[in-house]
């Protein structure tokens, strides 16, 4: 009983030794497992899974921890039991044949038994002891020991014997699970919780709005801390798993790296080239705005980079999703066949929210994706608080694992920022709104970023088209009259082209005018200059004539003076 019970998170050796159950989540809840060498009580009403939890404990013990087990059944026969748990994938018969497990069916038929004088339950002890010795069992399940009360009459004696049995189990050092049927006002019908009080786990199967949710609660765990809330748990073809959502704090690691959205224009709009890794993205939009396509584009981009991606489809089957996405040029099938892309499709009404969450948790555990797409979260119908808490926990789960999660949600027409979205939007790091803009008798799709934490994202509305090559963002016309999309954008563009052309023509005309004017002015300048030159030439001529005349006058005077004899 000692070698397998270990608790990595505990340092002090004096603390209680624990035996892991091997049930996903339950061991975390119990901080390691059930108390080693002590009996634990699992109680609950009919059909809540006591027997399966007990059997899982033994099968996991034998297959995962090398601890053999004894299943003492007071209700079901060996064959029934192994057939019932075969649906969970447990090969009980194989374990029995390999001497790792003993199943002992104890049948107590009141009608066959006559009581005469004193007796005790030593026979049970002998059988149990023999079974334990046969396989060297460390684990024992007694399912449901209270059956002795209906088979035998002396309840005072039976109580004393049960008390002795539990003490005896402790002395044998086996870790035991005792199951008990839920009673009125107490945990078990015959109050055996009085005797098995080291660890008490309550299973519950509640129906709300016609949807059943299994829940588990650790009522008490002597000598150990434990999770105290009610946790959803799941029984399906892959066994039992409990979903403890204990990360109350916001201590998850953050990543600076981004992952592409799969839509090139959107990457640019986000300012950082994509969503932050580990962030939660909400894509809300009206019907037909391509929410799923955005999700698929994201998944496609992830798979192209060789990352594992998980799509939770709540409205379409995997084949349908793949076919539809092919029409917009997104080939998911190749990724699906390459094993990178996984689908989990389920009707949202199939389980309660808690069960969905538990299933998703398990699927995430199993496939270990780096990206998930939940399409859509609006498929869940029910009380707001429940949907909200489910999504909170799912987003939380992804954050703690660094999984980038894209959630799509259908918005009601005319009310994109619906009440439900507002409830979850605070959880989301990035919120992309898809909308229909109706004008001039057509609808056009636009997207905008309502928020994107930690990114200098665009505040612009962008028109996008779903084309055969995927989603393409189109440059929108943003003018004084608002955003123009679709044909009005085209018209606007045509108008702009016209205007530009006429602007160009006007410029050309003016250039020609100028040229002409320039030429005429230059011609005028030439004429003026020619006139000036002519004048200048005339002036020069006049000056030289004057000089010639002056000179002629001078000569004439000399001649006259000589003539008058004034000069010699």
């Amino acid at each position, binding site marked *: 009983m000692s070698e397998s019970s270990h608790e990595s998170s505990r340092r002090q050796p004096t603390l209680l030794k624990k035996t892991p159950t091997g049930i996903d989540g339950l061991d975390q809840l119990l901080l390691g497992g059930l108390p080693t060498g002590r009996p634990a009580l699992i109680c609950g009403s009919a059909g809540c899974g006591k027997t399966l939890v007990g059997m899982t404990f033994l099968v996991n013990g034998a297959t995962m921890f090398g601890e053999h087990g004894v299943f003492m059944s007071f209700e079901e026969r060996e064959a029934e039991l192994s057939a019932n748990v075969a649906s969970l994938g447990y090969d009980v018969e194989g374990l029995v044949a390999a001497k790792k497990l003993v199943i002992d069916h104890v049948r107590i038929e009141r009608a066959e038994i*006559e*009581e*005469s004088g*004193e*007796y005790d*339950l030593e*026979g049970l002890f*002998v059988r149990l002891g*023999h079974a334990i010795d046969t396989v060297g069992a460390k684990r024992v399940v007694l399912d449901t020991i209270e059956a002795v009360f209906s088979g*035998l009459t002396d309840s005072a004696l039976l109580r004393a014997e049960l008390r002795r049995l539990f003490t005896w189990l402790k002395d044998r050092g086996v870790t035991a699970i005792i199951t008990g049927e839920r009673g009125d006002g107490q945990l078990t019908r015959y109050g055996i919780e009085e005797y098995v009080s080291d660890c008490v786990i309550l299973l519950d199967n509640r129906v709300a709005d016609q949807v059943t949710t299994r829940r588990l609660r650790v009522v008490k765990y002597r000598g150990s801390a434990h999770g105290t809330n009610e946790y959803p748990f799941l029984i399906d073809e892959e066994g039992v798993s409990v979903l403890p959502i204990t990360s109350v704090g916001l201590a998850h690691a953050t990543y600076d790296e981004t992952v592409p959205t799969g839509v090139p224009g959107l990457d640019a709009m986000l300012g950082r080239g994509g969503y932050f890794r580990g962030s939660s993205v909400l894509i809300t939009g009206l019907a037909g705005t391509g929410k799923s396509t955005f999700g698929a584009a994201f998944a496609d981009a992830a798979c192209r980079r060789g990352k594992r991606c998980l799509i939770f489809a709540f409205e379409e089957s995997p084949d349908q999703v793949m076919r539809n996405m092919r029409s917009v040029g997104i080939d998911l099938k190749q990724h699906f066949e390459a094993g990178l892309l996984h689908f989990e499709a389920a009707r949202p009404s199939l389980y309660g929210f808690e069960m969905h969450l538990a299933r998703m948790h398990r699927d995430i555990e199993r496939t270990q994706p780096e990206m998930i797409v939940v399409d859509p979260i609006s498929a869940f119908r029910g009380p707001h608080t429940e949907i909200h808490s489910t999504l909170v926990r799912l987003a939380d789960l992804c954050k703690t694992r660094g999984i980038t999660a894209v959630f799509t949600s259908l918005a009601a027409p005319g009310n994109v920022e619906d009440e439900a979205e507002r409830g979850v939007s605070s959880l989301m790091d990035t919120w992309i709104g898809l909308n229909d803009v109706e004008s001039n008798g057509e609808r056009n799709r636009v997207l905008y970023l309502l928020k994107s934490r930690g990114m200098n994202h665009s505040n612009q509305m962008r028109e996008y088209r779903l084309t055969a090559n995927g989603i393409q963002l189109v440059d929108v016309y943003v003018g004084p009259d608002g955003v123009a999309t679709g044909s009005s954008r085209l018209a606007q563009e045509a108008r702009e082209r016209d205007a530009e052309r006429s602007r160009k023509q006007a410029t050309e005309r003016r250039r020609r005018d100028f040229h002409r004017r320039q030429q005429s002015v230059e011609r005028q300048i030439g004429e003026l200059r020619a006139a000036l030159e002519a004048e200048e030439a005339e002036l020069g001529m006049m000056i030289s004539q004057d000089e010639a005349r002056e000179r002629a006058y001078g000569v004439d005077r000399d001649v006259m003076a000589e003539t008058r004899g004034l000069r010699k």
Partner: protein
Amino acid sequence: MNANTQAISNATDDAELPTTGEYNLRLYVAGQTPKSLTAIANLRAICRDHLAGRCTIEVIDLLVTPQLAAGDQIVALPTLVRRLPPPLKRIIGNLSDTERVLVGLDLREKSAPKT
């Protein structure tokens, strides 16, 4: 083990009388507790008084052969099992209440007064 060892050996206890084997009774006990010894003594007395020459008694000590407990669906001890004639009957206790033993062995109507 003491002088009574032979009394609770797993052998057929047919030393006293030759029997027809009409009644095949098996008494399961665990060790030599006072309860066991009382049961054995009571069973012998009942056989002598009511089934003389008609029964075989087997006493099985489960401390010696615990593997036999599951086969006959033994829970309480001591248990007396009527293997023959069918149907199988079980009587638990130290057999001190002779009337109820006789009812259990179908030797007396259930409605018969007990005292």
